[in-house]
C-alpha cells in the first residue's frame, strides 16, 4: 500500500485493495469480497444516513469489486445520489460508477438524466465536463434521446468555455455514432465547421473528429471545411518545432491535429480551387521533405509522431491518386522504410505500399522493391510483418511478375506459420489462376499447393482447379497426366486423391493409351488410396469408379468386384452403401448407351466469380489487392475465366426452348398470340378467400387461373430474386422449380424449369398464370424436367408480382401450389453511368419530399461491402464509384423502363458498420416508385 494516496484518497478503500492483494487464493479473495459486500450492504441499508464521503468510498469499493470481475447488483441508487453532491470528487465517483455499470433500469435512467441535466445547466465548466463525459461514456440510446438536442447547443453557444466545447464536440460525436437518427442536423452544423478556425488548438482537435464523422454522412453540408482544414494544416506544417508550445510533441508540431486534418481531407476529392489545391500540395511536399531531414531528437516519440503524419499524408496522396509526382515520392519514402531497423516502420511501409501498388501511377515504382519484399517474406522474424509482405506481393503481382511471386510464395509456404498458411494458399491459387497464360503452369501450381500444404487447401481451391480443367480442353490431358504422376507418391494428401479421382474419372481416357497408365493401372492406383481416405473422398472415388466403367469397359469386372465387396455393399455409412448398391446395379442393368448418357463428361461449369476469391474476401474483408483495383490498373484484366461468355448464352439451352422457337436473338415483343404476354401492369386476380378448391377442380381440362392463395413463404422466396435472375424458386420433396430470366429495358424473358424429383410421373401438370399461358406437356416423367418460357413486357409501374399457380397429380393425389413469379419492378432497371457532378445535380433536382423514400434499418446479414456491391448491381442500378465522398457508401443510378413511362432513379446506401445499420435513400421522379424500390431493396441487406 502506498504511503500517501494522492488527492482526497480514501483510506478504507486503500486498506480494502491491499487486503485483496494479499489474498493468497481465489477463494480467499472471494471471501474477503463477500465480507466487504455484506458490510457495504448493511451500511447502505442502515438507519444512519451516510455522509457524502462514506457514500463515495463505498461506491468506489463496489466499483473496484466490479472491475475485478465480480457482479454487483446494488449501490446504483447511492451512486446516483452522489451526482447531486456539490463536492466535485463525490460527483466524479458517482459519474464513474454510472459510466462503468450503466443499467437500463428505467427508474434510475430518469434520475441519472436528471442529474446530468442539472450539471449541464450549472454553468460550472468542470461539472459540465463531467456530465458530458458521462453521456459519452454511456453512449446509449436513452442518453441520445435525452441529450441529442442539448449537446449541440452547448457546443456552439458563444459563452461556452473551451474545455466544455471540447467535451461537447466529442460527446456529440459519440451520440452521432451510436444513434445517427437522433442527432438533429440543424443550424449548429454550419457553426461547427467554423470551429476549425478556433483559437484554441484543443477545441480544433476535438472538433475535427466530429466534423470528419458528420461530413461522411452529408458531404455537401460540410464542403467548406476543406479549405479551412487546408489552411489550418498549412499553418501547422510550416510552423517551427516550438511555435505551438504545449501542442508540440517531442519537437513535432501538433501531430494529433495534423493527422486528424489529413483524415478529414480524405473524406473529399482533391480540392477544385487551384489556390487551395496548391497550398495542400505544398503541405504534402513539406511533410515528405521533413522525412528526409535529420531528426530533432533521438527519442522514439519524436520519430513516431513525425512518421505518423507522414503515413497519414501518404494515405491522402493515395486517396487522391492524381499526383504522379507525389505518389512516386511516397513510394520511394516507403521504400526506405522497408529496410528500416524499426519493425513497426517496416510493417507500416509494407502495408501502405499495398495501397500504392494499385495506383496506375505508382504500380511500377512499387515493383522495383520486389526483391526487398521477397526478402522480408523470408527473413522477418515477426509473423505479422511477414503477413504484410505476403499481402504486398499479392497486391503488386501482375503478368510480368506472377511466375516469380507465385514461386516465392510457394517456397515460403513450406516454412510458413500455420496461422497464415490458408491465406497464402488462397492467394497463390488466385494469382495462379489469374495470371495463367499457360494452364499447365496453373495445374502444376495448384498440385504443388496440395503437396506442400494439403491441409490448408480448402474445398474452394480444389473445386476451382477441377472447374478450370473441365472448362478448358487444352489442359485436360496434361492435368490427367500430372495427377496420375502425383498420385504415385507413396504418401499423398487426401485432397490430391480427390482432385486425382475426379480428373481421372473425367479424363483418364486421355492418358489410357500409355501402357504405364492403362485403365487398370489408373484404377489400381486410385484404389490403393481408397482405404486411407475419409468417407467423403471414398464417395467421390466410387463415382470415379462408375465413370471408369463407362470410360473403360475392360475395367467393369474388376470394379464390379470392388463394389460388390461386403465392405462396400454393407458399409455402415449410408452414403457409401447407397452409392455402391446403385452403381453396381447401374453397371449391370444399363446398356452401354444409357451408361454413356448417364455418365457423360461433366458439362462446363458456368463462369462466375472465382469461389476462392470470394473466400479470400470473406477472410480478410475488403482490402487493397488485385481483385478490387485491377480494373483501374490495366483495364479489363478480369480473372482469366471471366472473359468467357456469360452463362445465360453459354450454357446449353434445353431442347424444349428450341422447340418453342425462342432461342437466340434479342428479346423482341413476341408476335401476338404466339406466346404469353405477361401483362404485369394488371395485378393478378386477388385470390378468393377460403380454403383449397374442391378436388375435382384439378381434373378440369383448361388452365384455370391460380385460385389458391400464394404459399406463406412466397414473399420470402420472391425476395431472394430481387437481386438475382437465376436460381431455384421453389423446392419441396416432389418438385423443384428453377428460374432463369433475363431482362432488357421493358422486356424480359423467363424460363421456368419444373423438375420432378420423384421416380413417379406427374400427371395433369398445369402451371397457370394469372393470364393465359401456353400449356406445357401435361405429364412430367419421374426425374425429368420440363421447361416453360415466358415473355414479359412491363407496361407500366406495378407493385404485386404475378402469381404462378401449379397443379398436378402425383400418384393419384392432386397437388396444388401457388407462387409469386420473381418479377419485380427493379427487373426493368436500366443502369446509367454518370459522374459525381451529374449525379449531385440530378440528386438536387429530385429534392421534393415526396420524391424521396428513405429507410433506416438493421443489417440482417453480415455487412460485407463486396456482397453489398453485388446485390446493388443485381438490383439493376449502376454502381457509381467515387461519387460519394465517403468510400463506404454506395451510390447508384438507373432508369426504370416501362412501355408507358420511364422513371429515373437515384439511390444511396450508407452502411454504418458500428451500429450494424443501413440508411437507404431512393430518389425518383415518382413517389410510388421511390417507395416501392426502397421497400424492395431494404429487404436485401
Amino acid at each position: 500500500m502506498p504511503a500517501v494516496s494522492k488527492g482526497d484518497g480514501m483510506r478504507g478503500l486503500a486498506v480494502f485493495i491491499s487486503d485483496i492483494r494479499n489474498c493468497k487464493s481465489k477463494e480467499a479473495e472471494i471471501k474477503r469480497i463477500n465480507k466487504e459486500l455484506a458490510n457495504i450492504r448493511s451500511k447502505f441499508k442502515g438507519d444512519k444516513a451516510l455522509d457524502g464521503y462514506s457514500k463515495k468510498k463505498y461506491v468506489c469499493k463496489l466499483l473496484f469489486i466490479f472491475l475485478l470481475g465480480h457482479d454487483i447488483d446494488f449501490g446504483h441508487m447511492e451512486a446516483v445520489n452522489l451526482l447531486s453532491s456539490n463536492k466535485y470528487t463525490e460527483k466524479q465517483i458517482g459519474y464513474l460508477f454510472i459510466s462503468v455499470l450503466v443499467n437500463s433500469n428505467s427508474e434510475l435512467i430518469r434520475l441519472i438524466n436528471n442529474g446530468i441535466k442539472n450539471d449541464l445547466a450549472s454553468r460550472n465548466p468542470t461539472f459540465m465536463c463531467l456530465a458530458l463525459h458521462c453521456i459519452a461514456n454511456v453512449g446509449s440510446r436513452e442518453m441520445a434521446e435525452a441529450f441529442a438536442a442539448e449537446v449541440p447547443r452547448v457546443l456552439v453557444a458563444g459563452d461556452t468555455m473551451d474545455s466544455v466545447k471540447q467535451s461537447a464536440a466529442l460527446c456529440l460525436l459519440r451520440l452521432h455514432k451510436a444513434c445517427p437518427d437522433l442527432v438533429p442536423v440543424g443550424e449548429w452544423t454550419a457553426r461547427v465547421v467554423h470551429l476549425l478556425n478556433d483559437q484554441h488548438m484543443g477545441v480544433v482537435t476535438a472538433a475535427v473528429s466530429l466534423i470528419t464523422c458528420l461530413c461522411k454522412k452529408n458531404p455537401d453540408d460540410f464542403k467548406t471545411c476543406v479549405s479551412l482544414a487546408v489552411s489550418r494544416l498549412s499553418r501547422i506544417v510550416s510552423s517551427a518545432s516550438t511555435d505551438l508550445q504545449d501542442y508540440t510533441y517531442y519537437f513535432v508540431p501538433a501531430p494529433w491535429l495534423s493527422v486528424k486534418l489529413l483524415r478529414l481531407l480524405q473524406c473529399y476529392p482533391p480540392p477544385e480551387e487551384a489556390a487551395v489545391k496548391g497550398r495542400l500540395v505544398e503541405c504534402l511536399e513539406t511533410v515528405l521533405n521533413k522525412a528526409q531531414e535529420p531528426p530533432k531528437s533521438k527519442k522514439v516519440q519524436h520519430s513516431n509522431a513525425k512518421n505518423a503524419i507522414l503515413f497519414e499524408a501518404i494515405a491522402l496522396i493515395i486517396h487522391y491518386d492524381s499526383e504522379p509526382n507525389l505518389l512516386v515520392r511516397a513510394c520511394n519514402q516507403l521504400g526506405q522504410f522497408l529496410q528500416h531497423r524499426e519493425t513497426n516502420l517496416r510493417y507500416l511501409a509494407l502495408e501502405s505500399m499495398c495501397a500504392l501498388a494499385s495506383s496506375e501511377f505508382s504500380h511500377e515504382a512499387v515493383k522495383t522493391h520486389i526483391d526487398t519484399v521477397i526478402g522480408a517474406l523470408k527473413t522477418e522474424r515477426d509473423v505479422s510483418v511477414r503477413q504484410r509482405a505476403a499481402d504486398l506481393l499479392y497486391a503488386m503481382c501482375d503478368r510480368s511478375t506472377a511466375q516469380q511471386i507465385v514461386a516465392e510464395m510457394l517456397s515460403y509456404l513450406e516454412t510458413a506459420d500455420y496461422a497464415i498458411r490458408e491465406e497464402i494458399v488462397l492467394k497463390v491459387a488466385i494469382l495462379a489462376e489469374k495470371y495463367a497464360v499457360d494452364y499447365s503452369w496453373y495445374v502444376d501450381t495448384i498440385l504443388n499447393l496440395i503437396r506442400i500444404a494439403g491441409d490448408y487447401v480448402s474445398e474452394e481451391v480444389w473445386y476451382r482447379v477441377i472447374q478450370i480443367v473441365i472448362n478448358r480442353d487444352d489442359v485436360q490431358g496434361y492435368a490427367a497426366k500430372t495427377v496420375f504422376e502425383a498420385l504415385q507418391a507413396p504418401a499423398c494428401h487426401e485432397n490430391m486423391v480427390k482432385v486425382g479421382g475426379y480428373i481421372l474419372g473425367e479424363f483418364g481416357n486421355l492418358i489410357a493409351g500409355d501402357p504405364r497408365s492403362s485403365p487398370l493401372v489408373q484404377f489400381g492406383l486410385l484404389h490403393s488410396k481408397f482405404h486411407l481416405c475419409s468417407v467423403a473422398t471414398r464417395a467421390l472415388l466410387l463415382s470415379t469408379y462408375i465413370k471408369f466403367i463407362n470410360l473403360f469397359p475392360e475395367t467393369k469386372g474388376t470394379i464390379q468386384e470392388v463394389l460388390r465387396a461386403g465392405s462396400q455393399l454393407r458399409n455402415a455409412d449410408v452414403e457409401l452403401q447407397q452409392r455402391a448398391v446403385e452403381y453396381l446395379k447401374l453397371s449391370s442393368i444399363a446398356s452401354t448407351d444409357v451408361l454413356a448418357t448417364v455418365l457423360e463428361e461433366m458439362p462446363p461449369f458456368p463462369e462466375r466469380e472465382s469461389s476462392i476469391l470470394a473466400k479470400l474476401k470473406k477472410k480478410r474483408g475488403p482490402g487493397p489487392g488485385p481483385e478490387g483495383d485491377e480494373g483501374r490498373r490495366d483495364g479489363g484484366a478480369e480473372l482469366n475465366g471471366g472473359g468467357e461468355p456469360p452463362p445465360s448464352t453459354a450454357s446449353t439451352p434445353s431442347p424444349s426452348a428450341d422447340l418453342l422457337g425462342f432461342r437466340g436473338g434479342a428479346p423482341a415483343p413476341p408476335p401476338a398470340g404466339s406466346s404469353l404476354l405477361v401483362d404485369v401492369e394488371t395485378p393478378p386476380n386477388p385470390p378468393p378467400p377460403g380454403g383449397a378448391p374442391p378436388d375435382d377442380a384439378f381434373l378440369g381440362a383448361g388452365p384455370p387461373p391460380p385460385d389458391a392463395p400464394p404459399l406463406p413463404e412466397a414473399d420470402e422466396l420472391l425476395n431472394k430474386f430481387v437481386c438475382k435472375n437465376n436460381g431455384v424458386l421453389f423446392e419441396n420433396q416432389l418438385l423443384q422449380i428453377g428460374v432463369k430470366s433475363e431482362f432488357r429495358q421493358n422486356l424480359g424473358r423467363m424460363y421456368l424449369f419444373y423438375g420432378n424429383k420423384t421416380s413417379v410421373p406427374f400427371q395433369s401438370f398445369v402451371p397457370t398464370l394469372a393470364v393465359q399461358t401456353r400449356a406445357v406437356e401435361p405429364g412430367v416423367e419421374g426425374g425429368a424436367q420440363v421447361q416453360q418460357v415466358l415473355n414479359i413486357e412491363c407496361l407500366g409501374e406495378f407493385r404485386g408480382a404475378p402469381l404462378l399457380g401449379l397443379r398436378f397429380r402425383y400418384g393419384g393425389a392432386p397437388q396444388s401450389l401457388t407462387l409469386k413469379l420473381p418479377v419485380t419492378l427493379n427487373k426493368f432497371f436500366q443502369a446509367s453511368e454518370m459522374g459525381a457532378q451529374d449525379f449531385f445535380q440530378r440528386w438536387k433536382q429530385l429534392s421534393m419530399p415526396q420524391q424521396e423514400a428513405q429507410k433506416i434499418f438493421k443489417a440482417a446479414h453480415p455487412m460485407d461491402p463486396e456482397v453489398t456491391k453485388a446485390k446493388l448491381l443485381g438490383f439493376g442500378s449502376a454502381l457509381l464509384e467515387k461519387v460519394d465522398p465517403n468510400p463506404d457508401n454506395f451510390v447508384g443510378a438507373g432508369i426504370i423502363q416501362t412501355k408507358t413511362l420511364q422513371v429515373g432513379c437515384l439511390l444511396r446506401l450508407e452502411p454504418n458498420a458500428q451500429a450494424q445499420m443501413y440508411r437507404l435513400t431512393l430518389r425518383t421522379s415518382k413517389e410510388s416508385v421511390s417507395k416501392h424500390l426502397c421497400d424492395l431493396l431494404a429487404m436485401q441487406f
Partner: protein
Amino acid sequence: MIHFILLFSRQGKLRLQKWYTTLPDKEKKKIIREIVQIILSRNQKTCSFVDWKDLKLVYKRYASLYFCCAIEDQDNELLTLEVVHRYVELLDRYFGNVCELDIIFNFEKAYFILDEFIIGGEVQETSKRSAVKAIEDSDMLQETVEEYMNKPAF
C-alpha cells in the same frame, strides 16, 4: 476511433479497461481474455501492431504494465502508440514516477485522467498542462497525511 483500451500486467491481471463502444459484460470479458493472451504470447522484438478481427491492436509495455488500444483499420497506428505514451506521461505527471501500484490503488484517478484525454475514443486534449490541470483542480481539497490517517479504515 479507439474502440477500447486495456491495461494489464505481465501476469495477465487487468488493471484498467475503458470501452468506447457498447458491449455486453460477457462479451467484454471474453475479449479481455482473448487479447491479454494474444499480447502476452508475443515475443519481445515483434512489431507493436496485431490484426485482431476487423480491428487492430496497438500495444506497448511500460515496465510491468501493458497498454493496449484497439483501433479501426484506417486509424493511425504510430500515433496511437503516442496516445499511449501521452497517457503514461499524464499519469506520471499526476502521480510522479507512476508505477503499477499507483494505478491499482488509485484506479479511479487513472480513469479520470483518461477521460480528460480521450472521449468517445477520440483524443480531445493533447496538451499535458490542460489535461492534468483538470484533475488537479479536483484535488484542491488536498489533505495532509494526518487527515488521511484519521479517516476510518473501512
